[in-house]
């Protein structure tokens, strides 16, 4: 789900950069004020673990490959703004060091995976924790954050062939419309969501009493 360079139009990534940078500054301000000194080593260790985890992909039939994120567990342990900042940092390092996700597409990856994923996990947990068992609520937080991120990436990619065409009607950037890209991204990420839900459950239960 890391969008590479060349898929996103400047009309999309330039405004996305402005929004993303504004949100990152705001989240850094919140992070400065809210994070306790004792929590930093835990956040650093989890970020390092998820940096590696995001590099591990599971090849699926049909030639696609998927990977876990760890967004939900950081969001539930440290808050969604801290998770947004931490996961954006990981995505930025992946883009610059591995070329995994592009520089021009970084704000799309950051907003859809780090921002939407963190807040979706946070609010899913708030809504479901009083209605369901804690384990199920944690699982659903991880599951829903993965699917919402995949859907956001699919929508951003899928809108391109409708909006940006050359004089011959040929797509200038990402060429596949909603009918192809939404199932291509969402279906494999149902499997990732299950893994992410389990990861969230294990990590949050193991660490939340220590913070």
């Amino acid at each position, binding site marked *: *789900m*890391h*969008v*590479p*360079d*060349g*898929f996103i139009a400047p009309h999309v990534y330039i405004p996305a950069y402005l929004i993303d940078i504004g949100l990152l500054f705001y989240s850094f301000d919140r992070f400065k004020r809210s*994070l306790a*000194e004792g929590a*930093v*080593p835990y*956040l*650093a260790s989890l*970020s*390092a*673990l998820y*940096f*590696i*985890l*995001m*590099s*591990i*992909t*599971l*090849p699926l039939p049909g*030639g*696609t*490959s998927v*990977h876990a994120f760890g967004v939900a567990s950081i969001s539930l342990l440290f808050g969604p703004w801290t998770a947004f900042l931490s996961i954006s*940092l*990981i995505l930025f*390092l*992946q883009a610059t*060091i*591995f*070329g*995994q996700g592009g520089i021009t597409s970084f704000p799309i990856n950051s907003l859809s995976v780090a921002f939407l994923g963190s807040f979706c996990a946070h609010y899913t947990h708030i809504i479901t924790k009083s209605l369901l068992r804690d384990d199920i609520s944690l699982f659903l937080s991880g599951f829903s954050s993965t699917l919402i991120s995949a859907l956001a*990436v*699919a929508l951003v*990619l899928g809108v391109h062939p409708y909006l940006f065409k*050359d004089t*011959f009607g*040929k797509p200038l950037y*990402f*060429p*596949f419309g909603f009918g*192809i*890209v939404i199932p*291509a*991204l969402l279906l*494999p990420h149902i499997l990732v969501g299950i893994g992410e839900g389990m990861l969230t459950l294990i990590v949050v239960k193991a660490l939340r009493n220590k913070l």
Partner: protein
Amino acid sequence: MILVSFLLAFSLLYAHDLKHQIEKEGRCIVVSFFFPDGNRFSYEEYEVYKEGDNPPFQVGRTDALGRVVFCPKEEGIWWVKTFSADGHGAQVRVDFGEKGAEEKRDGIFERYRGLLAGLGWLLGIFAIWEIYLRRVKR
């Protein structure tokens, strides 16, 4: 630590980024696309452009080995774009000249180096933050 070590080793086999290799065969260029785990980027759409030209010089799908083969009409900068419906893809710049156009694959050492560099940056940034917090607290 055991888990991290395991993941570190494992991640080198299953990294996510699409890689490529450029080779010259006579007057033609072969660009091979593959994932670091060895999976080929097979049967995916591609487009080849001479820099500044539109429409594309060549379009098609990669072969079973994830290759794009094209024979440039002239020397200069060429671009090969490939993409799959799930958002994987790459844009490769090919400088086609007298000496041809060749680029070697990333070795395992480069992947270790990248992974360790990323971990170093992450832990370093958080360490600086921890030091800052301790100084502020005093």
